């Protein structure tokens, strides 16, 4: 059901603005409208005073610091929101400032460790490639080594290096080279420690890429560096974990911080709302949308908490104003609101299709996936999904509930068609259908699908008629009447043509089609001569579209039969495996496809007859932050 909205004006003494905004934020029942942009109310906006500006600044600062700290650890569940007093904020600031440097240090250490974890394996790889070149001799004292990697196409650098090294170190040096991979030559330079400085300067001058080890491994002989690097790599995850734990240990005991952050957000919201409030010398004026059923509660809450200095009254809605949309349905129906929202919200003062979807969508699903076993599996799956993911994701919870209803219908239709894993029930224990066996009675099944389509479409058109009449939309009224008449006429014609109806109905049938066609042409103006007949054909096509109720189901029946027959063909254990695999595939398709098809039948065929979309969602002031804690006065 679409909740009717009231536009209200709250007027009060400026001293009471803070209390009023705090109350409204907590109640979450009013969507504030910017007074400056509201036609009919012309007031300058209220600007925050100096004290409020200071508070705003302080809160924004704390919010940023808190975000930085809380971002380091995962948000614990069920933190909610606390009431915060100015003294608490001062304490928080002090605590943040005290903890800040320590946390910063820890974060930096964590960053370093993580960088090291990424970089070390690359060093290790270079070292491993060079290792076969390193002579054991270098581990003796008095000598130093430098490792170089040279691109093969620049191999001539080595000649230059040799010449220059002779100049620097005389005979007391050695260059060992080898191809380490297709594009790279590895070179190890061994030289006396006395000439180290000159060699380093030389290596800096000529263009070779030197394998430089991280600080902690510098100066170590190669083999030792390699070994200690390997040890380091295996130790790093532990150290990172430890650093994480230290941060978590520091932050987690301050669970209250999450609640405080929500409280800060709430207060920032309130301060932000001040801009949307109009002002005179002594009074403030706030305007907003309130769901009509919630008006009395809001009224009494204002009276009790803020007092007589503030009053609320309902004001007239401007003609071009569109109130926000709030859907409110009984709890079994509520999951279907998600599916309506998935398309787009209905316009204000139009029909909320949620309850109709609650009736028809699971029914259509059941008609398509009518199988007792598949239905039970789908039921178990949807219950599991609801329990496993429902708490975290509202969309998953809604979807799983929709699937629960759908799979119950699936079991019921399974009994009606006599299907138990396809024809297995019939083969094993002679199960009989209550109505028809889909596999054999294709014609009745198709007629049934068409009948369901005709009923659904007629219902939609009747709703559309009612809505058009209520909203006094003349052309929509004529168009829907035309479609309905044409549809009825075509069905009568089909009945007469197939000898199901008396020939006497032929004249009324033709008359209805012609009348409908004229109606459809009339509303389109001159173009109607072309568009009218097209509209009529598409309406008829929409009914034919319900044949998918039969077609999707038949595909599933045949696939189940294939599974059973393949299963029976070979040895029993191979058969069971093959049959289970095909049935599992069929079930997966059988859950996905009917859901999409049932949705489509609603979105395209059914909604096309009456649905007016384009509503904006109702977003009450305060809904962006967690609910405030319950106090005795609330």
């Amino acid at each position, binding site marked *: 059901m679409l909740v009717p909205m009231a536009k209200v004006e709250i007027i009060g003494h400026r001293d009471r603005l803070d209390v009023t905004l705090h109350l409204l934020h907590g109640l979450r029942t009013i969507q504030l409208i910017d007074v400056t942009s509201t036609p009919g109310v012309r007031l300058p906006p209220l600007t925050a005073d100096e004290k409020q500006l200071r508070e705003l600044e302080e809160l924004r600062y704390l919010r940023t610091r808190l975000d930085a700290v809380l971002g380091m650890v995962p948000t614990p569940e069920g933190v909610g929101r606390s009431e915060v007093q100015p003294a608490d904020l001062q304490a928080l600031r002090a605590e943040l400032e005290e903890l800040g440097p320590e946390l910063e240090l820890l974060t930096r250490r964590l960053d370093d460790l993580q960088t090291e974890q990424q970089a070390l394996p690359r060093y290790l790889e270079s070292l491993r490639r060079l290792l076969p070149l390193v002579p054991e001799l270098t581990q003796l004292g008095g000598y130093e080594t430098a490792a170089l990697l040279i691109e093969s196409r620049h191999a001539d650098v080595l000649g230059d290096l040799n010449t220059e090294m002779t100049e620097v170190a005389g005979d007391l040096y050695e260059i060992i080279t080898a191809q380490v991979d297709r594009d790279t030559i590895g070179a190890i330079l061994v030289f006396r420690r006395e000439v180290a400085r000159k060699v380093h300067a030389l290596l800096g001058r000529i263009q070779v890429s030197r394998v430089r080890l991280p600080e902690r491994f510098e100066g170590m002989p190669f083999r030792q560096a390699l070994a200690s690097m390997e040890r380091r790599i295996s130790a790093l995850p532990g150290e990172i974990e430890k650093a994480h734990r230290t941060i978590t240990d520091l932050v987690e005991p301050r669970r209250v911080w999450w609640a405080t952050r929500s409280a800060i957000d709430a207060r920032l919201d309130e301060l932000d709302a001040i801009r949307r409030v109009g002002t005179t010398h002594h009074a403030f004026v706030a305007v907003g949308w309130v769901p009509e059923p919630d008006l009395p509660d809001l009224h009494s809450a204002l009276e009790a908490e803020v007092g007589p200095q503030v009053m609320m009254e309902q004001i007239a809605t401007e003609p071009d104003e569109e109130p926000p949309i709030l859907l409110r349905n009984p709890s079994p129906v509520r999951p279907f609101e998600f599916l309506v929202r*998935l*398309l787009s919200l209905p316009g204000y003062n139009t029909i909320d299709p949620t309850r109709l979807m609650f009736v028809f969508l699971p029914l259509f699903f059941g008609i398509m996936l009518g199988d007792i076993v598949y239905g039970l599996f789908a039921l178990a799956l949807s219950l599991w999904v609801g329990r496993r993911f429902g708490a975290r994701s509202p969309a998953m919870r809604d979807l799983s509930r929709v699937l629960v209803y759908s799979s119950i219908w699936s079991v019921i239709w399974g009994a009606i068609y006599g299907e138990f894993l396809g024809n297995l029930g019939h083969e094993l224990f002679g199960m009989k259908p209550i109505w028809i066996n889909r596999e054999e009675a294709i014609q009745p099944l*198709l007629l049934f699908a068409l009948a369901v389509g005709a009923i659904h479409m007629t219902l939609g058109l009747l709703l559309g008629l009612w809505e058009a009449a209520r909203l006094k939309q003349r052309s929509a009224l004529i168009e829907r009447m035309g479609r309905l008449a044409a549809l009825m006429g075509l069905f009568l014609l089909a009945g007469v043509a197939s000898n199901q109806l008396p020939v006497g109905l032929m004249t009324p049938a033709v008359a209805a089609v012609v009348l409908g066609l004229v109606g459809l042409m009339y509303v389109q103006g001159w173009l109607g001569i072309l568009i009218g007949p097209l509209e009529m054909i598409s309406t008829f096509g929409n009914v*034919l579209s319900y*044949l998918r109720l039969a*077609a999707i189901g038949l595909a599933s029946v045949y696939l189940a039969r294939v599974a059973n027959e393949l299963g029976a063909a070979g040895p029993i254990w191979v058969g069971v495996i093959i049959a289970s695999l095909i049935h599992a595939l069929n079930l997966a398709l059988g859950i996905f496809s009917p859901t*999409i098809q049932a949705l489509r039948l609603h979105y*395209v065929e059914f909604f096309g007859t009456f649905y007016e979309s384009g509503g904006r969602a109702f977003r009450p002031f305060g809904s962006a932050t967690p609910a405030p804690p319950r106090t005795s006065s609330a």
Partner: protein
Amino acid sequence: MELGLIAIGAGLAVGLGALATGIAQARIGSAGIGAITEKPELLGRVILLIALPETLVILGFAVAAMVMILLPG
């Protein structure tokens, strides 16, 4: 022989419809995914658009069913 031709006709009715649906859905699908990436709230409308061409194969199925049921008799 005649029954064979009827079966081929029915098969063509569904098959060609399915092919056309597939071609249309391929284009709508890729465009739709692009749209969802930019604006996730369009999901519902994109599902609707992707499901639209399925009418083709359903109409093909309707023709096939009519051919199979009405012609042999």
